[in-house]
């Protein structure tokens, strides 16, 4: 019996030792985040402003989202949210009131607590007609913002619609003591360094045109974060130099990598990790329907059939783009994945144009109808090599089906002027669409007005009605079929030749761990990035 107990105790002891060793080896494989290190990000353009009340630049937003907290963080499905400044929220049963319960441990970088009064003051500034914040129309259905106590704030709505939470969340919260100590014009003109922050980072130094340095905000509510000591956005206004510095390790991170560089980088720089995901942008060729040549959908379809979109993607984007078949992008929940792309079919295009009355009467290789040649100016802006290349390819491809294209390149603001005033035939342009499924701003009949975004002068009452209906449906599953139908109609009508949806290509040195870029922002979790002490490197 004694021997049995001894054996049992010995076996149990061995088992314990084995378990301890196993646990130790598991934790050794899972690396813990380490504090320290400097990340250097290469940027091609400096930021015009980082003041959230002034700037509309998406790159600036990536930075100021690190300095200021919004109420919630939008997930990459564009439908759901995570807590941020607000730890919880709920709608009233009638959805006319939206209550946020704020974290109590958020402090501004000047030591003052962040409270519901800051949320209220931010709303007042955002809707101030003298300040004219660019996103003020998003708050048009909010009647008022009521402070219940320091940590509870209620938004009162005049109107129920699906995007109440999204609209309320747009724009970071700024400090009341900053907003109410200045006139509206002064708020907009304020330098970012004047504004107290409550996000994970603060600005240490901004040498205009040279670099922007962020360091951890010691008041940030998550203790121990950010892990990095410093993040430097280094301004290098030449793309070749940017790539060179990425290769040589002078910068650790770069976004918007030209697709032609990816293969080279992957082969010769194994220390770089390449992130690749679709964007919310699409590139298109707009047909001005006020031009009699482009008034008929069949003619526009024929022109689309004459353009080899896949060739454009392969040659110019090296496959890092997807063919676009919709005014929405695949990232959006309302996107219709079932639309078949109009095939590249030059013969089919010729046949349709012949049916529409076009023929080469004078034998010069180009089609005419009623004495008018099928000829037009194709505009695009200078300074964008890819669009210039698309112009060249489209010109050559349409010539094969008897269409004469005159490529015209002009300065961006001049081209936009022509586009906005509908003084053009066709133009190559791009949209970066919002996270809201609403086609009215670009496709609505109302949007044809002066200053509106419907510059092809497209008007389809069915589209308008379906869109208005879908935008009121609180249940996205019910709204989805309506949006799908709208996309089918628009694609059928071809007011644009939808070309492609480009990917975002982003490179990061492998030394840096914890990065989870998503379609919302490359740097949304920058406060969780870390680098091992042995790899810290730095400036």
């Amino acid at each position, binding site marked *: 019996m004694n021997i049995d107990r001894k054996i049992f105790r010995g076996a149990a002891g061995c088992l314990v030792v084995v378990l301890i060793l196993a646990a130790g080896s598991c934790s050794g494989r899972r690396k813990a985040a380490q504090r320290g290190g400097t990340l250097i990000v290469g940027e091609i353009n400096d930021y015009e*402003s980082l003041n959230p009340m002034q700037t509309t630049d998406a790159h600036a937003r990536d930075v100021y989202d690190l300095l200021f907290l919004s109420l919630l963080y939008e997930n990459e499905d564009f439908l759901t949210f995570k807590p941020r400044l607000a730890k919880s929220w709920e709608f009233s049963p009638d959805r006319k009131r939206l209550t946020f319960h704020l974290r109590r441990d958020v402090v501004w970088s000047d030591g003052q607590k962040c409270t519901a009064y800051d949320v209220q003051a931010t709303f007042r500034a955002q809707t101030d007609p003298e300040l004219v914040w660019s996103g003020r129309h998003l708050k048009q259905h909010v009647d008022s913002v009521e402070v219940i106590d320091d940590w509870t704030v209620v938004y009162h709505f005049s109107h129920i619609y699906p995007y109440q939470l999204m609209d309320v969340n747009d724009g970071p919260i700024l400090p009341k003591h900053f907003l109410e100590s200045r006139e509206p014009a002064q708020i907009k003109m304020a330098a970012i360094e004047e504004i107290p922050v409550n996000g994970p980072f603060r600005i240490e130094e901004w040498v205009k045109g040279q670099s922007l340095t962020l360091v951890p905000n010691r008041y940030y509510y998550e203790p121990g974060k950010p892990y990095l000591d410093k993040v430097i956005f280094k301004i290098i206004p030449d793309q070749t*130099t940017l790539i060179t510095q990425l290769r040589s390790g002078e910068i650790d991170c770069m976004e918007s990598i030209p697709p032609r560089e990816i293969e080279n980088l992957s082969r010769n720089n194994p220390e770089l990790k390449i992130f690749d995901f679709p964007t919310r942008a699409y590139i298109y060729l707009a047909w001005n329907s006020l031009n009699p040549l482009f008034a008929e959908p069949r003619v526009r379809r024929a022109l689309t059939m004459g353009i080899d979109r896949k060739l454009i993607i392969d040659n110019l984007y090296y496959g890092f783009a997807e063919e676009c078949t919709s005014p929405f992008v695949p990232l959006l929940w309302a996107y219709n994945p079932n639309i078949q792309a109009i095939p590249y079919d030059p013969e089919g295009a010729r046949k349709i144009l012949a049916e529409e009355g076009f023929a080469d009467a004078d034998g010069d290789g180009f089609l005419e109808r009623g004495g008018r040649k099928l000829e037009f100016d194709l505009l695009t802006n200078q300074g964008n090599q890819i669009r210039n290349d698309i112009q060249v390819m489209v010109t050559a491809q349409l010539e094969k089906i008897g269409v004469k294209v005159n490529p015209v390149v002009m300065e961006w*603001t001049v081209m936009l002027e022509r586009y906005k005033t509908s003084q053009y035939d066709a133009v190559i342009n791009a949209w970066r*669409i919002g996270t809201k499924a609403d086609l009215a701003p670009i496709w609505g009949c109302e949007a044809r007005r002066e200053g509106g*975004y419907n510059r092809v002068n497209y008007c389809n009452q069915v589209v308008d009605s379906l869109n208005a209906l879908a935008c009121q449906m609180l249940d996205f599953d019910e709204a989805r079929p309506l949006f799908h139908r709208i996309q089918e109609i628009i694609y059928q009508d071809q007011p644009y030749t939808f070309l492609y949806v480009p990917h975002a290509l982003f490179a990061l040195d492998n030394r840096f761990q914890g990065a989870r870029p998503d379609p919302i922002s490359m740097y949304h979790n920058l406060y969780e990035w870390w680098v091992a002490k042995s790899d810290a490197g730095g400036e």
Partner: protein
Amino acid sequence: MTIFLLKRAGQSLLLVLIVLTITFFMLHLAPGDPMARYYHPDISPDTVELMREQFGLDKPLIQQYFYWMGSFLRGDFGVSLRYNRPVRALLAQAIPNTLRLTVAALALYIIVGVLLGIMSAARRYSLLDRLSTVGALFVYSIPSFWLALMLILLFSLKLGILPSSHMQSLGVSARGAFPLFMDRLSHLILPAFVLGVASAAGMARYTRGSMLDVLREDYIRTARAKGLSEGQVLLKHALRNAALPVVTIIGLSIPFLLGGAVITEKIFSWPGMGQLTVDSIYARDYPVVLAVNFVVALMVILGNLLADIGYALLDPRIKVGPGGGRSS
């Protein structure tokens, strides 16, 4: 002299106002809209129109002109349409950056050009003369952007002894004044060379030609006959007389100090007036373009004035008279 200066100031002010008026109307009448930057489906057209009203761009052009001229004459350059910050603040950032580069470049341009010119004139048709002429013209003929890229390739990438871009290294300001100074000096070498030395051939040719004309004069022969050293003949007697055309060129180069050097600034990522001006033109940032125009016009006038005063100092026969010009 005082009356001369006052008269010149009055004439100059009138000239500047005419230039600015023409620029104002040309800018506003050219195609393009400063509000183009807000043309995006995420921004409501009504909001864009409110912003247009905020900037006063919805008013009739003539009303905008008088409003702007009134502010300008009070010393208020207005607010940048692009940055929404006072134009003065933008110029206050860009001007020192440009001056660092262009003063260094101008100094190199004058020193190298004049020295080369004197040497070539003193040793006319010698091997030194021919080599320096050919070398200077060779560098002068090279496009500045190509020269800049070749210098970066050699000194920054191959040899690694000079930085390739920017005004200073990251984080150097925290290391102290002397390290900052030395770091900035190392960043200045390549762009200043491209801007200054590369153009020095022009100055060298003017100086050489002017010196040769003077060296033929009788008083130079007299000076040599008196037993003066060649150095004294060249520097004390010849150079002073040969300097008049050189002074003209230097005076005409003054506007360059703040006109900036766009290509060089772009290649070396130097955030100066050149970049600010070009970017503002593309963005139709009217207040900034007008302010830069004013600054450059002022520099042209100042440059001419300094040239006139320089003439009077160099040549006692020349007086700046009440007629406002030079007379001898």
